[in-house]
């Protein structure tokens, strides 16, 4: 399986991710994009600042990609996450999967996003009319 993991400040390109995982033998090409939303828990959001502990985040992105694909027939997988200040509507994360059939690809994307949100040391700080606030999700499991 080919895995392409990126953590970058430049805009993410869905078409580039799709092209990376497409292949003649892949009957399913699935591209999931996470996008900055204009509201969170009822509060307006104008932008989100993403930060990471980069060396560990890269290691964990690679690990969660492999775990999500384990036992599934996945041919190619791209997992790209953006850092920096993103405006509403900008893409913060892309998971692109190429596989022979659709069900493994759908399952892989679902697993991968769950693992990413639990484990990968990336944080978002929301900006809104009332100022900035950290979003606290899950505490990574103790090792």
């Amino acid at each position: 399986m080919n895995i392409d993991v990126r953590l970058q400040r430049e805009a993410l390109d869905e078409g580039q991710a799709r092209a990376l995982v497409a292949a003649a033998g892949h009957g399913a090409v699935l591209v999931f994009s996470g996008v900055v939303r204009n509201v969170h828990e009822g509060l307006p959001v104008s932008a989100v600042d993403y930060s990471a502990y980069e060396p560990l985040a890269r290691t964990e992105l690679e690990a969660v990609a492999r775990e999500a694909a384990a036992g599934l027939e996945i041919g190619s997988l791209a997992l790209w996450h953006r850092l920096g200040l993103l405006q509403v509507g900008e893409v913060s994360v892309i998971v692109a999967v190429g596989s022979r059939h659709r069900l493994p690809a759908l399952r892989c994307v679902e697993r991968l996003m769950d693992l990413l949100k639990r484990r990968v040391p990336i944080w978002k700080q929301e900006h809104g009319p009332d100022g900035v606030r950290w979003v606290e999700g899950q505490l990574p499991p103790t090792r």
Partner: protein
Amino acid sequence: MDARQVTVLGFGAVRDVLGAERLVWALPEGTRVQDLLESLERTYPTLHAHRSRLAYAVNAQWSNLDSVLKDGDELALLSPVSGG
């Protein structure tokens, strides 16, 4: 007492508690992560409120409160993550 230096990184809400993403802290040999936190709390008392909601990494590897820190180590204090 032999002074050692550890770089402390704070991420998420802990970054605001420390007032910086990175600071250098001197501690004696044999200091564990737990000891360093107690030392930090004397300077940054609001850190205590975050203690039950922190994960730790030493030199970009997941770690825990009992890990012993060496001179030059990098300790990351990680708030609950929220990527995606």
